[in-house]
């Protein structure tokens, strides 16, 4: 029954130009390595530190895209003092990897927390965005999703974005073109929590 939502999600996402893939938890790093295969710099949000480390072991230049994150043994963090350097790394990055708060099967949408870990920029500046979505977090409708995402009373800052497919425009003669200001490519990796 959960798989039904997953299938609907994947179909809807495909219909708007993105792609989805279901993997098991221990297959995640391999799956990500596959979709980012050709890329040069890959930035990940701090909560995906483990993933960054696995990617580096596979020879991918994965860094944590946050200046506040302390350097770890393997994952390279961004320098914190030099704006030019930071922004140049952001602009050179070929791929941004973020988590997803939830998915919406009706429209193939993922919700990204843009409040923490620079996820807003990571999911918008590079030409390729990879979102990691827990299968159990896929909901059916927008209404249900917004109920979950609503800012809680007393919480000061709450920022998120609903992402449905890659960036697009029809501004030139109504022709649909992908990758205007945001990513040209969107991959959602759905992690199946197997028993």
């Amino acid at each position: 029954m959960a798989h039904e939502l997953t299938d609907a999600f994947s179909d809807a996402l495909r219909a708007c130009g993105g792609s989805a893939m279901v993997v098991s938890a221990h297959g995640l790093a391999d799956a990500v390595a596959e979709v980012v295969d050709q890329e040069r710099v890959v930035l990940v949000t701090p909560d995906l530190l483990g993933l960054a480390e696995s990617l580096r072991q596979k020879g991918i230049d994965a860094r944590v895209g946050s200046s506040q994150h302390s350097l770890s043994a393997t994952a390279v963090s961004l320098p914190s003092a030099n704006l030019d350097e930071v922004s140049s790394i952001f602009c050179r990055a070929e791929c941004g990897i973020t988590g997803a708060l939830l998915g919406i099967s009706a429209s193939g949408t993922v919700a990204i927390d843009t409040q923490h870990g620079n996820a807003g920029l990571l999911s918008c500046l590079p030409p390729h965005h990879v979102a990691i979505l827990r299968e159990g977090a896929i909901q059916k409708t927008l209404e249900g999703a917004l109920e979950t995402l609503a800012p809680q009373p007393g919480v000061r800052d709450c920022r998120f974005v609903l992402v449905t497919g890659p960036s697009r425009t029809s501004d030139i003669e109504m022709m649909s073109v992908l990758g205007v200001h945001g990513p040209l490519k969107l991959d959602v990796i759905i992690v199946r929590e197997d028993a």
Partner: protein
Amino acid sequence: MAETGHRLMQREISLALADPTLRTALKRAMAILYQRRESAFASIDYEALRSRAHAIKEAAIARNAELLVELEQRVLTAGGHFFLAQSAEDARQYIANLARNKGVQLVVKSKSMTSEEIDVNHALEQLGIEVVETDLGERIIQLAGEHPSHLIVPAIHKSKEEIVQIFAENMDVPNPPSDAEGLTLLMRRDLRQRFITADMGITGANFVVAETGTVVLVENEGNIRLTTELPPVHVAVVGLEKIIPRFADLATLLELLPRSATGQLLTAYVSFISGVASSEILDTGRATQMREREFHLVILDNGRRAAARDPELRELLYCIRCGACLNACAPYRNVGGHVYGVHPYPGGIGCAWAYITSGHAEAKQINGLCTTCSRCTEVCPTKVDIPWLNTVIKQRNNQEFGAGFRQRVFARADLMGAAFSPVAPVANVGLRTMPARWSFALMGIDPEKRLPRYERETFTNWYRHRHSVSVGQSHRRVVLFVDCFMNHNLPQVGKAAVQVLEAAGVEIAVVHNSCCGRPAMSQGLLEVPRRWAQQNLDKLGHLVEEGYDVVCVEPSCLSALRDDYRRLLEQTPSASDPRLHLLEEHSYDFAEYIVNGVRDGSLSLRLTPVHSAFVVHGHCHQKSIGIGSAPAEALRLIPDVTVHEVDALCCGMVGSFGYKQEYSDLSRAIGEELFEQLRAHGGEIVACGISCRSQIEQGLGRRVFHPAEILSRALRPPLSGSNIGGGTAS
């Protein structure tokens, strides 16, 4: 003064109509948007959603004062700044001061009609600040030095070739690529650098939630995300009407907005911003003054609170700027947004926005472009009655600037009929003589257009003197609504309707001819139709109470009974008269009545084949009340019949619109789409409205019949098969 205005409008229209690029671009874009919208709504309960959306907006506008207070509190608590701007000038000043104090040099902006409304670019540029639009279409328009022409697709009027030219001239790229992908990539690279170095980002917002202080931004390109995330200062300029009470209201509105605007289930990005951004890329601060990120919410009043207090204009504020009404609007589809002036909001809805935000004279200029055809009302996700708003504005303009003679003439179809019918042969010739046509021209009526012919024997006369027909024992009773045009110009339609209804076993009553009030309403003269609405309510109301149904042969009259009387009587004691609701419930279009009756078995019609094929054009008002295919279905009751429905938007005549000198070219252009479709089909033409009929007969030189005329023909054995009808034009 008015004459100069008319001539100016006429010139603008001819220029637009003579621009083949514009027309091809518009046609393509509108067709795509219209059709995408249809499929996006295919799988959800549109009517239920839009009723909810209407209720949400209605409550929000009614409570706007308290919501403002709540919102301000939320924004301040979250560390943002809040400013309520009374006027466009106030908002401009606030933003300009902020930019000056922060030492801003470069501003990136995302598409926002509200910031166009306050013309903030100009104010910033005067301070020597560079302002860069970042939405692709908007940037193209900025480079071309123009104004956007559509709410959603600002560069809808530009061809790819023109865009290549604009890039070549303005972007330091001698040979820009010639494909849409290449052009887009070029723009991505060019703007990326500006996003990174901008000191301030200005956006609008689609919704702002009072309860949580959340600003919601709907987009596809990603430029809004970058505008809100990268520059250290984010300013959102938002019309006061966009405040909604609760976060839980968003789902309904977000199900509707993208579907209506672009036919997407959701746009690529919907950003929810509560509190101040936190991207660390700016941790070090760009300019010395900017160590911290800032968020400023500028709420713009500029006439909106006054409109919220105005019961007749209030619903304008329910508009969520999706642009769907433009895509459904025949005048807009033919001339595009620029004919509506430089005001940022084009179309019929633009006239209402202009009226409250930029001035009555501006609104007056473009008010006539709305034919009040009502086609837009089906597609508006919040059920804004755009034609009604335009009618109210016309009435107020009449009060403020005076109503013209031409308006008074067109308003009184009843008087013209009463004056000309008795002397019909003379009048018909007289109205076509040179002197008559000169005086038409002086009044601003297109002398080339023929007014409908008058018939000497009116329907009422015929009815009074005919041998009454026994229908046997009947359980359905109908009052046939005798409208001015049927009575004086097309009595044959009324006669046919009587024959068909009686053949179907209906007992008929006819009350003395009463105008429905539409002709006067469409001239913005509301006092007369208000009286008629009251009279008709009294006259028809008690018959309906006795079990009669009201049947109209003219769809415009039906829409008066079903929709407009509620509006007209809104501020009168009759608003709560239960008969008003009864009348709405029990009024039918002729074809609709027959089809429903045959379907539910309460009417039976014995029809014989007529050996003809028919091509049917639905009336705008039939379509807007959801009975667009009733005429075709009625014809399909005839055995062995071939019926084809054309889907052109509108005939272009729409009451007096096509007769007006300044709109007559536009009226013809709108009609052309319909003519083309009709030409492609050889059958006899069937249309219900008198204006559709005149437009088609004049434009195509073919006769047009009302469904009643065709059905009455099928009542008889085919051998005697002469038709009963006569055309309106000779």
